[in-house]
């Protein structure tokens, strides 16, 4: 009988570069910056890293395939390194691998590092690549905003909410994240934006305007994980531990079988259910102190609040407008600015979310530090609502 990984693995060091347009840095620079910060945090030497997982979603954008770019950049001599990729959930996937390695007793120290160098594409948005696959013969070449925008119409139709009302709630989602990012020195977009500007922004994919979409950024984030015992041996009396890491992936049901109405993300619900069980969370609204969710688009955050059980079905727009998820609300969400404003270097984002929860749990979040943080949730979503990989993780302290 599987016992889960709750409290079997501690995070002893994390690093995260500022996210943004790093015209002067390559992926190796970003990896080194994040890793050196994590090493200093963990107070261990690089030679103690016994296994590493590199998360990189778009290898053709100036990173390269395999995990060798990581091994080269960090000069990890003879260390087993693997590249993992699960679209935008790649960062969480890297962390999951490292956590499992430690939990299995295979290694004492494992590294999970996510990196992306998107601004070498030469344009905004995510790159579009087809490879002559069978799916290319029929699947639309839709953009990420186009894929997620479809949640809005379907959500409105399911709950009888007019698109204008939904759009206003979505605007508040973005407004809130811009407000939060102002105090985050590592965030990509550190500028407050008023709601009317958000509502009047140019349309990207109906009904998502420019400000409904997250930043596309360069960046890297990483975590060094070990056992709680070793963490204590390093002088961390009450280390941050992993309470749950769960992942759920589409098997074709949403877009091939006629039951899903397009208004929510089934995998988020499945991953959250398992994560709550693994962590022993009975009442997520009461137990979870803060959430870092995959707000690639404002509508994604809106439906995620329901998918995670943080809002009743059909009520998220109202809870959002009631400021429940604002910094001073009952359930602070994206306190670091989220994908929306911290930025979204795809392979790094899952680890960036963990970095914020880790920082909040250790009281290191500076101007954005919340008063009481005991349990934080990260939600990292890859793909599209109709074909997704959702990772839900929970982090707290050992005691």
């Amino acid at each position: 009988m599987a016992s889960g990984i709750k409290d079997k693995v501690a995070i002893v060091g994390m690093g995260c570069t500022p996210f943004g347009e790093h015209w002067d840095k390559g992926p190796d620079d970003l990896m080194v910056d994040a890793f050196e910060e994590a090493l200093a945090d963990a107070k261990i030497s690089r030679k103690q890293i016994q296994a590493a997982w590199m998360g990189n979603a778009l290898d053709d954008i100036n990173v390269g395939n395999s995990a060798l770019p990581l091994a080269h950049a960090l000069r990890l001599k003879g260390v087993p390194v693997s590249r993992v990729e699960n679209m935008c959930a790649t960062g969480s996937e890297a962390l999951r691998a490292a956590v499992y390695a430690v939990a299995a007793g295979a290694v004492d120290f494992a590294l999970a590092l996510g990196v992306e160098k998107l601004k070498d594409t030469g344009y905004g948005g995510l790159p579009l690549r087809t490879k002559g696959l069978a799916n290319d013969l029929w699947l639309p070449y839709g953009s990420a905003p186009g894929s997620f925008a479809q949640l809005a119409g379907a959500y409105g139709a399911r709950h009888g909410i007019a698109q204008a009302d939904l759009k206003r709630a979505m605007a508040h989602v973005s407004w809130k994240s811009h407000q939060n990012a102002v105090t985050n020195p590592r965030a990509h977009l550190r500028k407050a934006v008023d709601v009317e500007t958000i509502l009047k922004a140019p349309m990207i994919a109906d009904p998502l305007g420019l400000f409904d979409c997250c930043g596309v950024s360069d960046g890297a984030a990483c975590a060094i994980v070990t056992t709680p015992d070793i963490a204590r041996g390093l002088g961390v009396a009450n280390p941050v531990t992993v309470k749950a890491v769960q992942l759920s992936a589409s098997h074709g049901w949403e877009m091939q079988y006629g039951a899903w109405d397009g208004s929510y993300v089934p995998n988020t619900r499945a991953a959250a259910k398992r994560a709550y069980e693994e962590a022993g969370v009975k009442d997520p609204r009461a137990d979870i102190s803060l959430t870092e969710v995959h707000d690639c688009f404002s509508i994604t955050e809106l439906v995620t609040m329901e998918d995670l059980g943080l809002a009743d079905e059909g009520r998220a727009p109202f809870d959002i407008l009631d400021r429940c998820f604002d910094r001073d609300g009952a359930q602070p969400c994206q306190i670091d600015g989220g994908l929306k404003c911290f930025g979204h270097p795809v392979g790094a984002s899952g680890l960036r979310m963990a970095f914020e929860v880790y920082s909040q749990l250790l009281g290191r979040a500076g101007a954005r530090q919340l008063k009481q943080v005991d349990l934080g949730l990260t939600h990292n979503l890859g793909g599209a609502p109709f074909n997704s990989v959702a990772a839900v993780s929970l982090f707290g302290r050992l005691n």
Partner: protein
Amino acid sequence: MPGSDAPPFRDRFIAGVGAYAPLLRLNRTAAAKALKFSGLGGRATGFRALAGWDEDALTQAVEAARLAPGRPDNVVFASTSAPFLERSHATLVVDALALAPHTRTNDVAGSRRCAVSAVLDALLGRGETLVAAGEKRPGRAGGALHLAYGDGGAAARVSDRGAARLVGYASLSHDLVDVYASREHPDPYAYEERFVRETGVARVVAPTIKSALANAGLEPSAIRHAAVHEPIAGSWRDIARATGIEAPNLASDLTQSLGDLGAAHALFAFAACCARAKPGEHVLLASFGSGCDALVFEITGPMPGADQAAAALRTGLASDDYIRFLSLSGALELDWGVRSEFEQKAQATVLERYGRDMIGFIGGRDAGGNVQFPKSRIPVRPDADGPEPWQDVRLADELATIVSITADRLNYTPDPPFWFGLAQFDNGARVMMEFTDADARGFSVGDRVRMRLRVKSRDTRRGFRTYFWKAAPEQRPSLEG
């Protein structure tokens, strides 16, 4: 007299017709306004049917052929603007219509007469033949042909039984160089209209029609409906005077409402004639181009597909956007930016494995009865627990309802926005797919949609394209207001 000594022939019929016009109709007046400074563009009246970026001669031929149902032994594709020089379009028609793989196939081209010539060959032959014609001819901005031409498709199915019996015909082979296109000059090049009109009528069309009437043993007055492709728009009056025919020529009307449809023109007009003609009446079908074929039919009953063909003339979306026309017709190459540079190479091995299911829109019914697209070794049905046998199910003729939809303005498409979303088919299948033919209202959740064969991807670097089906509004807007 050309062809007047045509040999006897047995009873053969046109058993079904089809016609297809693309959604957009460019108002030629708007084009003339845009070109006013130059004085170019030709006649400033009527409309020009304008194919979408994702339509070509093949897709339009297939859409027309879908209205002429049947299980032909032979498929002929006819066009002067076929997208491929080497790759059989007739074979693609067979796959797009999910016809039997042993269906014989042939592509014809060489002149805009080719489709009617193929119909005549079929009428003089045996078995059942489907002739599917389509045109999307290139042109240069400002050229008179660019606005005179239109895009569209037409089809006819020939059989031993049907609704229009061949009663006479004549053919004339005559290399009158009115228009040509060549490898060195792909855009059609035209010679002086007066020369073409006078020579074409006097030496080609009129004599051939007279021979066909003689062959049928009919007086000109017996013709009640004409589908005669004019050498030059407006020359029907001269043809009628020369032949003594008093019937209206729907092919002339077509040049005003859609433009000259090339290989599809006469067949399109014939399909529209069949919607009007009553049993016992005679219809004249004549094509022009490097000669003439003239065929006389007696209508024997209601013609399958004719009403839909006539209806195609009443629906569409008028456009005054000359720049959009230039772009869609390939006369203006816009700089679509870096996002348009993405790779779209298709692999022949992948096409071999999946291509027929794609262009035929073939899904499958699993052992539990659920319909799925595309098929997979293990069905998506939740209680499926391993590989199952499949029964093919064609989705092309199924209606669907929109589950989710967006107008994507980020990704490259030659005609923004890029509509895509989830379509729930009435038979249970659901497919994430592209949408096309949006009218001014666009698409919304809950809308009903029908399927249209379209170009899925264009690999401009290698000159290749793939085809798939896209969801379009179930009903097109009326042009009659």
